[in-house]
């Protein structure tokens, strides 16, 4: 059995990561990004890892719709990463703007799919509230992680 929580969290984080990269690139001017820390992971590699984990999952009947949304989010994120690469390779400013607009739409689509799939009580939430300021209230809370069957 594996839990879908790391997959969900990973997709949410990759979405934020690509959004952050896009935001920084929109304001890049003469600044270099300082993301070359040895722990920094490329969104492409992370997504490939998630795709690999998804392939091992066989969702129960009641989770089919949610699973479909997650698979759809993965595909859309892959397209978003592809658009990022196209932006980097495009010299034409107008074309660059078009691709950027398309990329933003795709990121929002992923975000909407993740919202649709969210189940905070099961730990499927796009915001890491576990360590938030407002969580320090001494009220224990436990996730009942969604378990999905795995092909072995």
């Amino acid at each position, binding site marked *: 059995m594996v839990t879908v929580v790391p997959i969900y969290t990973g997709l949410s*984080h990759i979405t*934020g*990561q690509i959004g*952050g990269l896009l935001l920084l690139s929109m304001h890049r001017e003469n600044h270099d990004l300082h993301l070359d820390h040895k722990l920094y992971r490329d969104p492409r590699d992370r997504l490939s890892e998630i795709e690999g984990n998804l392939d091992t999952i066989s969702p129960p009947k009641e989770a089919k719709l949610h699973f479909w949304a997650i698979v759809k989010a993965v595909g859309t994120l892959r397209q978003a990463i592809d658009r990022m690469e196209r932006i980097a390779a495009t010299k034409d400013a107008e074309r660059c703007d078009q691709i950027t607009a398309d990329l933003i739409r795709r990121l929002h689509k992923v975000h909407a799919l993740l919202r649709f799939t969210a189940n905070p009580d099961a730990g499927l*939430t796009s915001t890491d509230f576990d360590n938030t300021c*407002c969580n320090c209230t001494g009220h224990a809370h436990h996730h009942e992680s969604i378990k999905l069957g795995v092909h072995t």
Partner: protein
Amino acid sequence: MVDYSIHVLEYARTLNYPKAALVYGAFDDEPVTMPFSYVLLRGRGHVALVDVGYAHRDHGKYLANKYHIENWRSPQVVLAECGVAPEDVDTVFITHAHFDHFGNVEDFPNATFYIQREEIERWTWVLSLPDRMRWMTASIDPGDILRAVDLSAEGRMKLLDGDIENAIPGIDLHIAKDSHTYGSMWVSVRNNQGRHGEDIWILPGDLVCQFENVKMDGSLIDVESMYNPGAQTVGSYTNIVLAIEEMMKLVEYDERRIVPVHEARLADHFPSRITSEGLTISEICLADEEDSVVSPARVR
């Protein structure tokens, strides 16, 4: 001359909050009520906010229920107490990217937003890290970053590289790297025609959450008082203390000029009132010829 009216506007609160989370080492202190607030600045032709709170949409309701946040009210309701609509806000300074400060940009359709580039860059890095380091991503909603992208596409997002003087007239922005967050920002208001060293107020974001962060009893170490940082940080306590020293120097060591927004006792120090929605408005100062919004003014 006083240029800007400054009001701290509570928009939600949580009860029974551990003091030790707000004041390092206060493990034996009674829990406190922690307000969530933003700051309204009005003057010199501008309507500005320091932070925007979070939206009670999507996961907002979950957040409220799960973590006992009470009495959330929209900016429309909160700002109306000062005769302001969200549409009137032209400038927003985001002190840091936590959801309760950066989580409601959509409600301000005409504002230009300022945030430190360092804050976005380091969060982008943190979001790439393995799950075992997930603690570092606390309080971040990737959806907020997407909304910042939208703002940027509309030309309403400014990424700053460090300190800025006169972001709008008389208002300066200061970075405190690797402190409460990676690129936290604090705001100083030079409230006497922008003169340096006169009538300055500091809006510290979460670099100062409670009065004790700036003025703690120092008898234990044989000093009258000392700085004592808040306990929730992804950066360095040292950098928080250094930022507080910088703030204090600017206000000539008058700690009353540093205004913490997670501090329920503001109402004990400044004229304040409770609105019909049960939220507190604290009037830090009034611009010349402006009417009080807490009248009849009273300190609790």
